């Protein structure tokens, strides 16, 4: 699980990581996640239109595009909240198109939602503890009191400290500020220890001084080269500083895919997205 896997486009983007070639020798570049001709129609509207894309471990891909371009729908298809009308999703060598959302989570697809999606009346600690419990495979244990599993509580607390919510652990999730709820959302995903982290606008609606906490977390996760990070984000400065690769969705179609500098410079992106909305910072 912890084995570092060499990235396919080894080189420039990771020039600072000197030891990466020693971590795993003789391994071929590998695709962990792939969507093939992924399509979903709602009535006559094609929200995601035949998107084929591969994602490799150690790569942070930013997904950009105007509002309504199908970014969140694309996420919902990958994490299983929606079933595609056409196409397939491959993960870790298996076709997961028919797998339910909980089973995809167990397989290693982690998701943080755009609209904060928590257990509002449970404590902050309990929110994360539930995620840790799921990750540990404790699903139907009904004979022991939950508090005897101190290991789960300790792991939850450690994650809360990482997202700087340790001091709020006994507060009900609904009483957190918006920014703290976003951090808790990220904490839930981290607790799942997924292979794929899917961030859907993690900094949306956050105050300016809270944004770095989340960005630092993402930057830390990036250090682990066995993970895929997918990031839907509107703030171009964030995308520029974090992304190894940008894909652009427009009207449900994949219109550009490449290194940040190339994609941002390409005419189609200038016209479809960046040209009209470079100044906006959040949805």
């Amino acid at each position, binding site marked *: 699980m912890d084995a570092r896997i060499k990235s396919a486009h080894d080189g420039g983007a990771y020039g600072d990581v000197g030891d990466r070639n020693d971590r795993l020798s003789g391994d071929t570049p590998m695709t962990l996640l792939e969507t093939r001709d992924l399509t979903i129609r709602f009535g006559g509207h094609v929200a995601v239109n035949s998107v084929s894309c591969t994602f490799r471990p150690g790569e942070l891909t930013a997904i950009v595009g105007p509002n309504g371009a199908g970014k969140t729908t694309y996420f919902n298809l990958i994490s299983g909240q929606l079933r595609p009308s056409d196409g397939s999703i491959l993960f870790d060598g298996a076709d997961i198109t028919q797998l339910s959302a909980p*089973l995809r989570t167990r397989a290693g697809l982690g998701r943080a*939602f755009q609209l904060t999606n928590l257990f509002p009346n*449970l404590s902050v600690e309990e929110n994360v503890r539930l995620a840790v419990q799921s990750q540990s495979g404790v699903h139907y*244990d009904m004979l022991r*009191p939950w508090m005897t599993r101190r290991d789960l509580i300790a792991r939850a607390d450690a994650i809360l400290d990482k997202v700087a919510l340790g001091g709020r652990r006994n507060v009900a999730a609904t009483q957190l500020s918006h920014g703290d709820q976003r951090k808790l959302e990220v904490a839930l995903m981290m607790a799942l220890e997924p292979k794929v982290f899917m961030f859907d606008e993690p900094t949306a609606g956050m105050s300016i001084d809270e944004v770095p906490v989340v960005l630092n977390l993402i930057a830390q996760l990036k250090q682990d080269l066995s993970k895929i990070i997918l990031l839907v984000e509107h703030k171009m400065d964030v995308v520029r500083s974090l992304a190894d690769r940008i894909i652009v969705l427009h009207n449900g179609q994949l219109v550009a895919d490449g290194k940040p500098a190339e994609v941002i410079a390409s005419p189609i992106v200038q016209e479809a997205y960046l040209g009209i909305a470079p100044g906006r910072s959040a949805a």
Partner: protein
Amino acid sequence: MMVLSGDPPRSRVLSIVLIVIIAALAVTPLVFPGAKAMNVATKICIFAALVASYDLLLGYTGSVSFAHTMFYGIGSYSVAIALYSMGPGWAAVATGIVIGLPLALLLALAIGLFSLRVEAIFFAMITLAVASAFLVLASQLSWLTGGEDGRSFQLPELLRPGTVLISKGVFGFELNGRVLTYYLIFAGSAAMILALLRVVNSPFGRVLQAIRENRFRAEALGFRTVFHLTYANCIAALVAASAGMLNALWLRYAGPDTSLSFAIMLDILLMVVIGGMGTIYGAIIGAAIFILAQNYLQALMSAASNAAADAGLPLLPGLLHPDRWLLWLGLLFIASVYFFPTGVVGRLRSIGRKPS
């Protein structure tokens, strides 16, 4: 602490009230050996367990079931029919248990897997339909269930009122079969409530609360919620069926009115709400308040009415006339729901807590 699964009452007043109720139930046969007091105490014990199992569904998972009396009835009828047809004996009791519990379990499993996949309202509708069908079935299959008359039966020798185990001379009270049956019910109900307390405070029970809060998110965390909900439904059904068996043993009878009717379903709902949903302890308090009011309010009002008449007060004797007891019972419930929206337990717990 461990016997309570790490979930103590968390309120001094609540602890005292619970201790008083449980102690009163424990000594009822010694202090109030009369038939009425014993019947009331037994009903409180059985309903505390029955309501606690309903709380597992309504309070912890948020699913509304109308089939709880059906499972209660399955338990009652299986013991009654077994004892009726096989004659009084422990083999018959065992047969009733061996048939009744798996039947309740299978039915709960089928209903759960069939209807808990989708929205909660569908589960409510399915349980309503199945429970109605079961009620009709029980009154139509006269050759098996005795129809509207139900089935009366005799208990095994040991549990009969005539069986004297320790005569009055030894400890100052008589331990007969009736008292033994009472303590059997008391212990059985206590064991079921403690088991439910363990379930709701287990890692599994925590997932149930998460599903109540946000089922979508629980799924996204990797919990296959349909199984959690189905298991909860099965556990609730097993406890309800067991409570039904205890009820049949006490009444020496099982019929539609004592175990299957929707009036009982309403009583259960009221007891959960009055006691406090999602607490388990609320079941004990709700059952005690409700059943005491149901049985003693009339007598209390009669006394109050007479006292008011003697004092020569206008209007009051009429208002407090015992025939109006249902009106006052209704007002009592409206008041309790209005003043304790989170139930008695929720209210008592929030008193001691500082506002954060």
